[in-house]
């Protein structure tokens, strides 16, 4: 479990992480979202003690990372950039890390197997593709059989089979009771794998909620209405909290009104409805709405 409280990190005049607090709970995959530069990677670096927060704290199972006597068995990390010497083989890289903790060769072989790297274990990692590098990073994160995992963009560069493998792996790790923090820009992937999401924007927490809350939340469902004469709907449904967007000559998307009410109004006005489909908002839409709000909020703040 990771607990971040009032975490703040400044680089010169820029505040990369600003009073961030969240909890990564055991047994759940927590998605970590945010635009580039939102502070995700910096937060992850602070979690594993590479960067020191200017104020606030982050603990793993109650201890600061630097106080852990066996950090690799507490938390495994795949950070965004390559974290190995290109001239070393995958096996020697992992053996070097394992040696610090007295972790044996058998475990190194195990993680190479789990990540599908046995055949290239004796190859220099400098020649690895992006996807193979990701697998090596995941192997390193799993090395200590840790209670908590943090993975920064693990599916970046993986083929579809690899993406599905990471999804299954993360789900099974969470099912074993481990806490998983996962950052990704692939919203569809995140929606499939995450139980909760923490959204960062400009260094601040914009949302920290379950996926269901995130998708079902404010604004209500969007309803797609197709048929001749739907262009009259904006006028008919006009109200403060209703938005109607024309998406095709014969189709509109309505939000803020439930589908039965739309049907009632349309039938009353004699519109011939061919299709009426409530559509759950996608994570991507919610994310875009959240992060664009963040930009507006910040602009006001600096005026």
């Amino acid at each position, binding site marked *: 479990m990771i607990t971040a409280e009032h975490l703040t990190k400044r680089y010169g005049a820029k505040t990369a992480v600003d009073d961030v607090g969240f909890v990564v709970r055991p047994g759940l995959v927590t998605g970590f979202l945010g635009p580039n530069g939102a502070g995700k990677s910096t937060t992850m670096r602070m979690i594993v003690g590479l960067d020191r927060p200017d104020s606030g704290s982050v603990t793993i199972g109650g201890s600061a990372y630097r106080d852990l006597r066996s950090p690799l068995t507490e938390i495994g990390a795949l950070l965004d950039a*390559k974290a190995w010497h290109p001239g070393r083989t995958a096996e020697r890289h992992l053996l070097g890390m394992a040696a610090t903790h007295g972790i044996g060769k058998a475990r190194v072989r195990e993680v190479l197997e789990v990540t599908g790297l046995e055949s290239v274990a004796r190859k220099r990692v400098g020649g690895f593709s992006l996807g193979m590098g990701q697998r090596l990073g995941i192997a390193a994160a799993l090395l200590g059989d840790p209670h908590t995992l943090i993975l920064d963009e693990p599916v970046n560069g993986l083929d579809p089979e690899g993406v599905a493998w990471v999804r299954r792996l993360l789900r099974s790790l969470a099912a074993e009771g481990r806490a998983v923090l996962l950052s990704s820009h692939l919203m569809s992937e995140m929606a499939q794998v995450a139980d909760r999401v923490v959204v960062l924007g400009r260094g601040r927490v914009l949302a920290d909620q379950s996926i269901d809350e995130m998708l079902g939340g404010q604004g209500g469902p969007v309803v797609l209405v197709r048929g001749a004469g739907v262009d009259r709907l904006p006028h008919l449904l006009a109200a403060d909290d209703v938005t109607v967007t024309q998406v095709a000559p014969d189709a509109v998307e309505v939000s803020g009104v439930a589908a039965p009410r739309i049907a009632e109004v349309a039938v009353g006005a004699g519109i011939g409805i061919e299709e009426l489909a409530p559509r759950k908002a996608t994570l991507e839409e919610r994310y875009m709405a959240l992060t664009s709000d963040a930009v507006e909020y910040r602009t006001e703040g600096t005026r």
Partner: protein
Amino acid sequence: MTATTPTADAPEARRATFRESPHRVTFGGVVRAEWIKLTSVRSVGWAIAIAVVITAGFGALAAFATFATAPEGAIEQGLLSDIPVAALGTAGILVSQLVFAIVGVIVITGEYGSGQIRSTLTAVPTRLPVLGAKALVVGIVTFVASAISLAVGIGSTIAIAAGYGIPVDDMGLDVSVLYTVLGGAVYLALLTVFALAVGTLVRSGAGAIAIALGVLLVLPTVVGLVPFEWVQEASPYLLPNSGLVISMPNAEMDGDFWRALVVTIAWPAVALAGAAAALVRRDA
């Protein structure tokens, strides 16, 4: 804005699902890790091999050059007797010290350049054991490599001298030859640790090599050229000068020797202290 209040699930809940790990970060483990890292990168192996060849080869070359260019009849007349054979055998130190400095630098700057440092410091978050283990491993490897190569260098010098008809009795072979080998190896090992510390402080390979070469080559030259007495007096306190005193053949174990030994130890010690402070304080 969601101000998050962590609804802390008790850490005990997690402990219940996982057994306490039997693994611990130990200094011995960190030393083993540094040994694995040092021996699994080609560049370091090559650099050490080059330094060994240079150290041993230059000794042989110096002996060969001395005897091959001797005036006709000089050897027979005994004019080349009492040549300190060990001195010829250690001629390579002047060149190989540059290679060992580069070894010391790349052991750490290679980690910063490649990103390996993130894996290293994530595994050992207290960080100081990493620097200590690196200094120990690279110091011992350098000591052994240079002791062997100095011995080979002096050995080949003896063989070449004997080949030119110098009587072995005239070569000044006594226990001082052993001290020469040990002194040279101590100097090269400590110099490599000094370079490691500089690399840790600077983090960039090019910058650290420039500084190390400045200390080894530029500083003694500059001090030698400035005609003020107090500058001249600083000369014995320069690392390469003190190192050459302790690796000098037939060095008397007098005040100069002990001062040189202290100076040779002080340079890497001070640099390591600075490197340790920087390593612990800085973001990786």
